[in-house]
């Protein structure tokens, strides 16, 4: 009781006010930062709009020394790589979640969750580095997939990178589902597998989408994996075994060129595309969240 009296009512209120103000300042700073990044990108892209270089940038040829600066192959590369990585990572991630949530014995479940948490902490460069020495030669020798630096190589590694993101997001959603649902279905004689199929899966369907979108966002934003493993050839990803370049790797590779060149300006166009893409992804997640709030299956604390 003594400790409760230490702060009088009024000083607690001032304290609260200050915390509120500090938080507001922090929010404003981050909001201003985001908006100014967007404005800056648009500003740097303006010369493209005014000089008519826009058509040039949105073309299919990247030959900076032949005067062609198309970044569409990189857009396609980013899209293909992220979708492929998502397709590879999504089923196992969801499987792990259900396993950890209700199918596996508690000890195994705890181990799985710890493992997933551990995976989020592994630096990207470790995945890239290990893949260069382990996966790339295998791809080349076993699949005769060109140089081994291919779309598939990068997608496989990237899928390992985004798997914990998807799994953790979805696991958090599963945790929010009302336990009464499971108890009721258990009482009705559903086996655990049936519970997953007929109760949990439908109840968590919004969470599935959110997890997928977040995983996709993580995949498309990653630079190092594609830079180290995808081969960086600026061409359309015609097959799983072609070498591709993503938008992020493109920015990393071209940023060091002469800052007056058209090649350099294409970097800002790439940045703007990525930024807008991430924005759209976030909007998607928000709208899904809003829908899911109306659902009765999840407990909101």
């Amino acid at each position: 009781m003594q400790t409760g009296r230490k702060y009088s009512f009024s000083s607690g209120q001032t304290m609260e006010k200050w915390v509120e103000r500090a938080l507001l300042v922090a929010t404003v700073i981050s909001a201003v930062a985001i908006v100014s990044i967007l404005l800056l990108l648009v500003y740097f892209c303006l010369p493209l709009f005014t000089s008519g270089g826009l058509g040039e940038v949105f073309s299919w040829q990247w030959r900076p020394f032949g005067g062609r600066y198309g970044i569409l192959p990189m857009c396609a590369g980013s899209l293909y790589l992220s979708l492929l990585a998502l397709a590879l990572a999504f089923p196992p991630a969801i499987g792990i979640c259900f396993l950890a949530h209700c199918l596996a014995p508690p000890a195994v479940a705890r181990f799985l969750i710890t493992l997933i948490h551990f995976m989020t902490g592994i630096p990207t460069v470790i995945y890239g580095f290990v893949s260069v020495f382990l996966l790339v030669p295998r791809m080349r020798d076993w699949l005769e997939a060109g140089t081994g630096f291919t779309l598939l190589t990068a997608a496989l590694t990237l899928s390992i990178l985004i798997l914990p993101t998807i799994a953790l997001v979805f696991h958090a959603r599963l945790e929010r589902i009302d336990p009464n649902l499971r108890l009721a279905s258990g009482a009705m004689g559903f086996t655990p597998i049936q519970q997953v199929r007929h109760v949990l899966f439908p109840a968590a369907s919004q969470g599935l989408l959110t997890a997928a979108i977040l995983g996709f966002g993580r995949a498309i934003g990653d630079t190092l994996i594609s830079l180290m493993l995808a081969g960086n050839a600026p061409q359309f990803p015609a097959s799983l075994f072609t070498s591709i370049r993503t938008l992020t790797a493109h920015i990393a590779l071209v940023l060091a060129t002469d800052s007056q060149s058209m090649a350099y300006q294409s970097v800002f166009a790439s940045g703007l595309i990525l930024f807008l893409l991430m924005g759209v992804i976030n909007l998607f997640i928000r709208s899904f969240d809003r829908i899911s709030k109306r659902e009765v299956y999840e407990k909101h604390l």
Partner: protein
Amino acid sequence: MKKIYGRWFVLVLLVLSILLPLNQGYCGALENFKGLEGTISIAGGTAHIPVMNDAAKNIMTFNPEVRITVEGGGTGIGVQKVGEGLVDIGNTGRALSPEEIEKYGLKSYPFALDGVATVVHPQNPVADLSAEQIRDIFAGKITNWKEVGGKDAAIHLFSRDEASGTREVFWKKLLDKGPVATSANIVPSNGAMKVAVAQDPEAIGYVSIGHVDESVKAVSLAGVAASQENALNGSYPVVRKLYMNTKGDPSGLVQAFIDYILSPDGAEIIKRHGYFSLQ
């Protein structure tokens, strides 16, 4: 009389100004670091790194008060970072363009001659290629090793990023500004190129001669071995100078570092890594 004295004065100054820097260079360049302290940050060309690292090690052993950091990034990064004042020395594998010098007010110090060698996997039987063949290979016209006397296997092309100084000299002096196939894999540094080619028996790429070791094989160019001797006597044409650049006049510490690289001690390091000193 006054006029004559004036002339003598100018002459003495002239002689002194010629002799003094030479003198400084000769009397153990490490001595210059005595009593100095501070940090030198270096970034840029990846071909420079072995030389910079060794020089930094020697200097920091001699005088632990001096801290030197060496980063890569490539020639383009070297120009940008030193131009923006983010590092003290920006290394480039090519001469600066007049625009760059004007925009940032940079000063260049060439210190070594480097060749760029075409490299293949050590097990590749192909040991000699003509300039014409190399051009066709990189343009994507020749796609199988058997067309140039090797085994029946697809050629795996490796090239460097747009900002690379190594790529620039290779493209200008060997490929004759010809096209490079878009299917070529792009790697971001000399080291990454070496790793890629060393792992792939069907690969072809190019690295700075200083980076050539037993993990890759340098192909001779129409009978001329890609060695530093041939680069120096002019018979191997794919050569360039390596530069250090500073923004304006360097500070005392940075000047001492540059003097060290340009000194006979520095020349020793440069030579040890397969480059030729310009001194």
